[in-house]
């Protein structure tokens, strides 16, 4: 009996110590990333404040760094378009597949679920490339309607971000709806609510899941890089504000981190660190805002 007890205690200790070690390792890695980005980026942001948020990048090889204004604007535009279309579509698709009633709806729902789960596993660069392919194929036709239509554009970038993020948001919300016990769902239906109203009530019941899904989706959009290579393409200047803006290349913070970081110019590498830091702070703000929003309700 005594040996049995001690093996049990030993096992418990081993598990506890490995958990602690894993936790410390994760903390160390995250801490290292945060510390490096802050150390290298904060100095650049601080010494160029607030110009860094508005200026265009300086030419390479000089002492000034300039700013990431066009990239910040680009990220804002890309994410705003993709997110504002993505949220209603994720919600409606999740409602459609989780709350389908007719046989054909159930079949279509199953297919939708399968395809989106496949899309989640897709490398995002492939998603970007596919969007580029589709946009290129469309270009000759679209040019007759919109003379300035190009495959490298704000529109393509937004579509790519949409495709990267919507499957996540959809799958999370759909899982949430499916996890609601059938008797709770029946209760709402039994009160005479139709499908949309029932789903609305059930989603309110699930609000923390929905907020979490949407904030993860938003964070994915803000931090996505690979899907934008072949779509938004990148740009270091401010776009002209007209309707054609949708069909011209646009910069993003993530592309700025990548392109400037790859060069050997010291001022551009500094700018890359500054962009990383801004991106980090932006994600942090989004994270905290979503938490506060959730708690405030």
């Amino acid at each position: 009996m005594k040996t049995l007890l001690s093996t049990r205690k030993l096992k418990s200790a081993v598990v506890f110590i490995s958990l602690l070690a894993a936790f410390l390792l994760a903390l160390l890695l995250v801490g290292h990333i945060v510390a490096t980005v802050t150390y290298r980026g904060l100095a650049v942001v601080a010494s160029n404040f607030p110009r860094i948020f508005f200026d265009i990048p300086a030419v390479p090889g000089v002492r000034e760094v300039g700013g990431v204004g066009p990239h910040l604007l680009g990220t804002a535009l890309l994410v705003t378009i993709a997110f504002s279309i993505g949220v209603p579509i994720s919600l409606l698709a999740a409602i459609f597949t989780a709350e389908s009633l007719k046989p054909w709806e159930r079949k279509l729902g199953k297919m939708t679920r399968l395809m989106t789960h496949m899309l989640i596993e897709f490398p995002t660069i492939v998603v970007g490339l596919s969007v580029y392919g589709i946009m290129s194929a469309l270009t000759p036709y679209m040019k007759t309607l919109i003379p300035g239509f190009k495959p490298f554009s704000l529109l393509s970038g937004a579509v790519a971000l949409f495709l990267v993020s919507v499957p996540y948001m959809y799958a999370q919300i759909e899982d949430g709806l499916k996890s609601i016990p059938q008797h709770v769902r029946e209760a709402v239906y039994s009160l005479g609510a139709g499908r949309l109203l029932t789903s609305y009530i059930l989603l309110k019941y699930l609000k923390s899941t929905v907020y979490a899904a949407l904030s993860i989706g938003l964070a994915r959009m803000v931090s996505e890089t690979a899907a934008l290579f072949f779509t938004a393409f990148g740009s270091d200047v401010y776009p002209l504000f007209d309707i054609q803006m949708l069909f011209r290349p646009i910069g993003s913070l993530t592309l700025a981190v990548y392109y400037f970081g790859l060069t050997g110019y010291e001022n551009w590498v500094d700018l890359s660190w500054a962009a990383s830091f801004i991106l980090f702070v932006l994600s942090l703000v989004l994270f905290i805002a979503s938490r506060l929003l959730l708690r405030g309700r």
Partner: protein
Amino acid sequence: MDSIIYIENLWVNISGRDILKGVNLEVPRNVIFAIMGPSGSGKSTLLRALNRILDLYEGLTVKGKIIVDGVDVYDSKTDPSVVRRTVGMVFQIPNPIPNMSIYDNVALGPKINKLAKSRAELDGLVRWALEKAYLWDEVKDRLQTPASKLSGGQQQRLCIARALAMKPKVLLMDEPTSNLDTVATTKIEELIVELKKEVTILIVTHNPFQASRVSDHVAFMYDGQIVETGPTGQIFTRPRNKLTEKYITGKFG
């Protein structure tokens, strides 16, 4: 006698299995009508057919006719939501929306169906329903606390209040006490008898004693069919069918 429910040759098949096999039933107004029978006899399915909650089940086919308060329930032009406004339901597991307050749970039906024109009217309706369900005195000081904080018996009475707040003409109760202790069960049985003045009640139970305690009429179901139906006193004292007799004397199976 004026009947509120007519069921004519009702067949229900779910995923290739016949659950109900030609059910015929008539339910008079303002009575308590109990449907009893062993597990798997199709009692719950019959109840769920009446307000079309069955529509939520995959692979469903329904044949036959159900008329509730003059409405042909399975007519292609009938909106199931409209049926559910006339036919309230209380389920086997107490199922208030857990994170919703006590008040909001009761107010949900009236809100969905726009039954109250003002906040004061809604307040009145909620209070009326909670009083009818014998719950008002226990919760009047904490209407805004989540429904999940109530005990199981209280939650079930809350569900009854929620169904009553829609002023239904028929109330379906699917084994409403099977998850409750004896004290809570007694309370709910008393409540059911009292509610007869307001609505016609169809109660499904696998407990013949409960059927004999609360109901005016009773039907005995077995294997998807109604074996026998009649006034409760008659069924429990002079059953015509051998199966019914075996069931009510507890010699079944």
